[in-house]
């Protein structure tokens, strides 16, 4: 066995300590992506179960944390895939935004984007911003929110996203566009002051 990480690897032999060691880490990881407490808890449980069965295969090349997070990632994508298959077609997108309120018939901005001067790093300390981002994400259809999260957080390629949702690449780009348009507008209205229109 390699010297590095042996202290951590020690816990491999003792799954009962897994929960203490990694439970909350995995829970937060899942929660950031799934945004549902009960589902996140179930994912943690499933991850541990899979780890239990696969622990002989763990070679200690990565840390236990990385190993478990890798299992969890797969579980998350599986869940999203199942969720999307079970979704009735008519619920997929309850309304299709056209953004006609933002652009005129020639495609020029009617309500131009305002200048966002703060960087997220500066916003980091401001609880209110994260509450609003959360609110804006929850206003998307669950499918849009899932696709967008997989793309931005998981950094899945559009190809991989196509597979999960069984949609074409073009459809995927359209969905990501809609998600971004809705989110930026929502953030602009609820967080960033709109000082736009006067300097047209």
């Amino acid at each position, binding site marked *: 066995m390699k010297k590095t990480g042996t202290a951590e690897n020690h816990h491999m032999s003792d799954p009962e300590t897994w929960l203490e060691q990694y439970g909350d880490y995995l829970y*937060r990881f899942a*929660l*950031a992506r799934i945004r549902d407490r009960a589902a996140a808890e179930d994912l943690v449980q499933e991850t541990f179960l899979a780890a*239990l069965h696969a622990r002989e295969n763990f070679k200690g090349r990565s840390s236990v944390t990385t190993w478990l997070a890798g299992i969890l990632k797969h579980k998350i994508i599986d869940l999203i895939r199942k969720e999307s298959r079970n979704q009735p077609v008519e619920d997929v997108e309850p309304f299709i935004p056209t953004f006609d309120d933002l652009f005129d018939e020639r495609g020029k901005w009617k309500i131009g984007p305002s200048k*966002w001067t703060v960087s997220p790093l500066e916003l980091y300390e401001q609880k209110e911003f*994260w509450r609003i981002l959360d609110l804006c994400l929850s206003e998307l259809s669950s499918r849009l929110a899932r696709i967008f999260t997989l*793309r931005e957080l998981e950094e899945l390629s559009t190809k991989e996203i196509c597979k999960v949702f069984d949609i074409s690449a073009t459809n995927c780009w359209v969905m990501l566009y809609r998600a971004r348009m809705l989110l*930026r507008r929502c953030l*602009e209205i609820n967080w960033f002051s709109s000082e736009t229109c006067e300097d047209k």
Partner: protein
Amino acid sequence: MHHWMGNCKKVTQMVSESLDRKLPLHQRLGIRIHLFMCKFCSRYRKQLLILREAMHLQERYVKDTSPTLRPEARERIRRFLIENLNKLK
């Protein structure tokens, strides 16, 4: 000159797409020229980049705010693990 080059709505679609795949050279150039001339579309592009950064930071935020497994869930998982561990023995 492409037909879409004066169309901000079209350009916003392509700017979004450029975050997901590498666009052909002529489109990249077209966008760049449009952005150079159009204040609103370049603001739009910056907003998308901030949004992307915010999504990454949000994960850190969730971790830093340290939500923990609810005690009942923790207990349920613990029992579940022990049960399955015994099955394996």
